[in-house]
């Protein structure tokens, strides 16, 4: 839960393209739960009140998980908004909308369930949220507060299992294989975790239990808020059968549309689709989709103390105002490369590929990338590549709404640094400057030092 520091003005640090869509197939939730409890309790009782599987599941049910990997995915409910509501009781039971303020530009980062009733959603422009819910309480993100709570929760999770993988500021995977027995059943253990989080922070979360990370993640979104969905390995095909393809972690709107075009609407259909067709349509990613649709997924929970196997590190920002000003775009790219560079160095990586994302006022979006022949680790090198990509690819003069930078093709530096004979020029010197800036930021905070050009981004 530590990797992504949520920043100010609605910058939610996410790797590009991993914004999976969840919360779909809500109607299915009940069906699955009913089948689930019918079979597992074996007595055809009415489904228990939502959000709680019965405690003390009979031994033979619990025993059915014996020998399987048992992975839990925890997702905090409306995390930023819930933290604010806990922090200030006056906000409780009120529509709280975190992100850009409506007078300015920006998007909704998170909103409380009270605001969702009005149709407000994460990622929606704040102005639209204001139209839908004018009496909503709009607040800017307070990264420090959320990070602090996130760390609290993480330390709590570590008490339950040594294998906890923080996945974002408000999500984590926990491997409870071989541990849940102490609590009776996997569901009992997860309920204990949920209770502990609620007791310590007052926050609720939704959980999914599955034989791999994919299934766990998909099931945690089934029953929000404060839910628990358990998908036993043997029930995986039934679980996936009628889900819309977009519920799959990794399938966004674009892939979803492409699948729809060839007549694939549900995960079940995807599972039965010929692998060669998927490969033709999506390349290697198509084969991965086929595996996911058949319930095959990664079971390796990377413990918090191990370095996550990051593929890319990126930040993006919606500008306060659409702009065509080169100065403002430059300043924002400076700011983004500074953040990306710092996070990359903190995780001990250097990168060989820089990707620039920009979105015009009409929402047409472009991403352009360049692979370099050598590895870079300085903010300035990232910035120069991003500027070059912008100059080479921004063919229109209209205003830009959003810019983003990410780096990929990462390599572990093992914290060692080869000194260069000609350090007065180039990357070697720039890296030294960045490392010094990092040290200052570590001691005095992220705002203690920055590039002058970063500071001019609102002018």
């Amino acid at each position: 839960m530590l990797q992504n520091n949520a920043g100010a003005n609605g910058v939610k640090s996410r790797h590009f393209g991993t914004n999976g869509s969840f919360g779909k197939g809500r109607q299915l939730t009940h069906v699955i739960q009913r089948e689930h409890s019918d079979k597992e309790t074996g007595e055809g009782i009415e489904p228990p009140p939502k959000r709680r599987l019965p405690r003390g599941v009979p031994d033979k049910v619990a025993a059915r998980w014996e020998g399987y990997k048992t992975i839990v995915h925890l997702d905090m409910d409306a995390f930023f908004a819930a933290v604010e509501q806990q922090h200030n009781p006056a906000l409780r039971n009120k529509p709280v909308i975190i992100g850009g303020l409506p007078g300015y530009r920006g998007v909704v980062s998170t909103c409380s369930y009270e605001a969702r009733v009005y149709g407000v959603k994460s990622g929606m422009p704040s102005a639209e949220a204001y139209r839908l819910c004018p009496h909503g309480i709009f607040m800017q993100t307070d990264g420090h507060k959320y990070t602090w709570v996130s760390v609290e929760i993480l330390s709590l999770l570590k008490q339950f299992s040594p294998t906890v993988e923080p996945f974002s500021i408000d999500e984590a995977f926990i491997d409870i294989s071989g541990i849940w027995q102490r609590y009776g059943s996997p569901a009992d253990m997860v309920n204990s975790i949920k209770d502990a989080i609620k007791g310590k922070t007052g926050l609720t979360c939704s959980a999914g239990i599955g034989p791999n990370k994919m299934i766990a993640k998909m099931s945690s979104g089934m029953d929000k808020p404060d839910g628990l969905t358990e998908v036993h390995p043997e029930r995986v095909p039934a679980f996936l059968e009628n889900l819309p393809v977009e519920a799959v972690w990794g399938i966004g709107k674009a892939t979803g549309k492409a699948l729809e075009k060839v007549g694939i609407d549900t995960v079940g259909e995807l599972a039965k689709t010929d692998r060669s067709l998927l490969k033709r349509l999506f390349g290697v990613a198509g084969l991965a989709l086929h595996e996911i649709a058949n319930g095959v997924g990664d079971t390796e929970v990377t413990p918090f103390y191990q370095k996550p196997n990051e593929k890319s590190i990126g930040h993006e920002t919606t500008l306060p105002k659409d702009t065509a000003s080169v100065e403002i775009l430059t300043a924002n790219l400076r700011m983004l490369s500074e953040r990306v560079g710092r996070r990359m160095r903190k995780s001990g990586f250097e990168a060989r590929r820089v990707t620039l994302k920009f979105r015009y006022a009409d929402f047409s979006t472009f991403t352009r990338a360049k692979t370099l022949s050598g590895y870079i680790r300085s903010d300035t090198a990232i910035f120069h590549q991003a500027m070059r990509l912008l100059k080479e690819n921004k063919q229109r003069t209209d205003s830009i709404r959003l810019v983003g930078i990410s780096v990929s093709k990462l390599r572990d530096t093992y914290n060692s640094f080869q000194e260069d004979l000609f350090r007065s020029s180039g990357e070697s010197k720039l890296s030294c400057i960045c490392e010094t800036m990092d040290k200052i930021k570590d001691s005095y905070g992220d705002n203690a030092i920055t590039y002058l050009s970063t500071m001019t981004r609102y002018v």
Partner: protein
Amino acid sequence: MKFTISKDKLNSLVQKVLNIVPVRSTLPVLSNILLEADKDKVKMRATDLDVAITSELEADIKNKGSLTVPGRMFADLIRELPEGDVVITGVDKRIEVKSERGLYKIAGISADEFPRFPKIDFTDEVKIDTDVIKGMISKSIFAVSRDETRPALNGILWKCEEGLLTMVATNGHILAKVEQSGLDVKGIEKGVIVPPKALEYFSKLSVDAPDEIGLVFAADNLVLNLDNTILTTRLIDGPYPNFEQVIPKEHSKRAVFDKDEFLALVRRVSILSNNITHQIKLVFGAESIEAMATNYDIGGEGRDEIAMDYQGEELEIGYNANYLLEIMKHVETDQAVMEFTTGTAAAVIDSISHPENQDYCFLIMPLRLAE
């Protein structure tokens, strides 16, 4: 075109130029070898547009002419032919290879499509001892950078002033400098950067090269004249970084040790170093060098030491073990010398003495471990 030549001679000629034929090329004709029959000689040419080779041998020429043939296929065929004379005939755009009892035909491409070779003016040619030039190349070429972001470092700097020929190569982490006096190469007072490919090939070829080779620097090219074979290579645009400036003029610490013992020590300990950074830590103390390496990924570590003669404060310093090994291999005396100023600056590695007329030294930059 028609000529007769013995299989062995033909094979040696084809093998010489084949090395320059690029494995893949966007220009199909570059995969071919150009054959030219003229007066009493047969010439073969190949190029990858950076390096070009021309090699010739005497042959019994019946008809003049020229044609290009697919290099690798032609070479494979000639190698497998039985001993004896071979008759090569160009018929339209095909080449016929006739051995005593066999007949082979290969389709070629017209010689007009082959890139033109520049005319070389040999008036400024300088003759240099082959072994001297080979020695200088081998002492420097290993330090050439393979990183394309700094193109000037992708070659060896050749510079000749007042009879002193200097070769320098560096990748920014290590540097090799070799100097030979008593040579007068014209036209490179300001220095030129020679890409390594032609030089590597020259070192291979020169096994049966004449005692002296000819050098010509002309119009962005270096020409190496090995009598029957002429190698031409494009030069890299500079400027070359100011290497003089980074060579430390003074030192505060000096270690003298047995080169082979040190090589063995680094090899042993580096087995347990991280296999990406190859980091090895050296501690220079009053009477010994201690070497340490750790590889957290495999949970391994190693520590070992050898005796040595050291003057100066104790020094703890990290290096890429591969660089140390590469450099030490080129130290020619039994004893090696390492000189330092500080733990973050370049160290000078040298042999204890040098042959007459020759001087060389190597630099290595430390691998710093971030806190």
